[in-house]
């Protein structure tokens, strides 16, 4: 796919999303929808400008070339860690903060491709007691508890 097409697709998607949100915010009582509608209309107008701009010669030059999708693990690494991060944000309320954090730490470090086992282990040994002392002891913060603790 060319970069020009990708830019147009993004602009059209923005217009569609702004349109959907605008429809949802119409008919709200006592002007509750006025401010969101201002933002939605403005996004749609700017996205339309973004779309129209792609027909200008200068934009065609700037957006020449294609969007490349690399299907290697290296390219998808941030996405894999992102998914792990999202799972982690839910897991802390099921497994507990400490258990899920330890699992996430080792999983995410290995997902990034780091293999210095000694370094990874020593950091964990320092990190988690430090978090426990600072948050649970000093700040007396309640951290989510799960199956074990």
């Amino acid at each position, binding site marked *: 796919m060319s970069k020009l097409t990708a830019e147009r697709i993004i602009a059209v998607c923005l217009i569609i999303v702004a349109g959907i*949100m605008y429809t949802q915010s119409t008919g709200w009582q006592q002007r509750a929808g006025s401010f969101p509608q201002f933002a939605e209309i403005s996004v749609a107008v700017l996205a339309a400008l973004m779309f129209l701009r792609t027909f200008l010669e200068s934009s065609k030059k700037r957006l020449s070339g294609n969007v490349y999708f690399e299907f290697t693990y290296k390219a998808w690494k941030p996405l894999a860690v992102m998914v792990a*991060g999202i799972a982690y944000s839910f897991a802390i309320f099921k497994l507990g903060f400490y258990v899920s954090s330890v699992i996430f*730490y080792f999983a995410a470090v290995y997902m990034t491709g780091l293999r210095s086992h000694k370094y990874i282990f020593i*950091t964990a040994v320092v990190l988690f007691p430090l978090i426990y002392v600072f948050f649970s002891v000093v700040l007396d913060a309640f951290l989510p508890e799960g199956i074990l603790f």
Partner: protein
Amino acid sequence: MESLDFLYNVVSIANLGAMFLGIVVGLIVGAIPGLGPPMAIALMIPISFEWPPETALILMVATYAAGIYGGSFTAILIRAPGTSASAASAIEGYEMTKRGRAIEAIRMSTFASVMGGIISGFVLLWLAPPLAKVSLLFGPSEYFVVALLGLTAIAAVSFGAVLKGLIAGLFGLFVSTIGIDAATAFPRFTYGMTGLMSGVGILPAVIGLFAFAQALTLCEGSPKSNISGVSKLSWNIWPRISEILHCRWSLFRGWFTGLVMGIVPAAGGSVAQWIAYSWEIQRGKPGDKFGEGEVKGLAATEGSNNGVTGTSLIPMFVLGIPGGISAAVILGALMIHGLQPGDRLFRDSPEIIFTVIWGFILANFFMGGIAAVLARTMAYVTLFPRGLLAPIIMIFCVVGTFTASGNPWDVWIMTAFGVIGYLAHKYDFSPAGILLGIILGPIAEQGLRNVLIISDDNPLSFIFSRWISVLIIVMIAVAIYYSLKPKKWETTDEDKS
């Protein structure tokens, strides 16, 4: 100079001890994304409950000043701002770190923050009552136009991709409307989810957009490499005269913006830093490299967010109007100790209030030494391998966000903003623009709504009938003019847009 008589009161073991405790706690808690000064100050209340009022309040104000500065450590070193008032520093500060200039960034940040805090403290000491009257001039119409002034900063922080930057800012405005509408109690875009009823907080948004997104960006490179690309850090932590002179006007602009914005209740450091940064970009000279680690940009943002600290206490001390959450917590502490804010505080208890203000000024002074050493030590984090740093940042994002509110929804909102921030950064939709929209949205909406009600749906005549609003509108026009004018330091404007 009645106030000078109370300088000696500060120099007692108890007061100095409280000051040091406040500085250390403020710096550490402020540096952790999610916690920030309000939490640090709140932690100090039970500790100081039975202390003399001046000692307890010195502890609070020292914690406040140090907390604001502490937020800049992580913003500069790993692009994970500890507080929303340090978000703008993450732009130039982190770019400097990436180029192996972390210590230089810390040097300038420390100097700008310390001097900003001291100047702000003297303004608080000598000009509090008259400036408090100025803050009373700010009504709904002024809040609305101040928010518009803040929004003009979006164009500046978009670095050439103005259209996408504006879309990002408007997306932020839209996000700020999620939740129960304050005026009508109507749930907007909540889809029946109770967690969204209270809206999207600034804290989860700033942590997600900057810190969590940064962790994902770190995963892109080689896991063994570090952020700064250097293997050693120097101990040269004091700024040279030449460095200060190079940034002198940037520092003045930052301090001035901070001092003025501090007086405006509800604006504070979160807005001041962006206005200062945008002003700095507009005043850039050929050779300046904004967005690529320009020290002048960092000097302005760091000067402004600590320049706010003293003057933001003025409406609280003189009028009893807290300008922000930190000031509100300090106000609570003031009342716990049996003191009532207002003119009478200065008239009936000068020995307490002036001792506290001197304590605030000295705390900023001592903070310089402690902060420079602490920040230098923390800079070792930039030598960590990226593969190790990314998961650690993500864990701190989660624990910091949850500790701040105790609300699981904030953790999920933070994660969602992490994903949005990562993608926005990748495709040139400025995450800073999104954050600005979220910060300014409620101020703008509330101000506009009040103006519509007061003016009976005729807002323009009402706004133009108030001189302070007109003055701010002139400033907006000047800011827009400079935003559209090609900047002296920009070479390839078209490339990014």
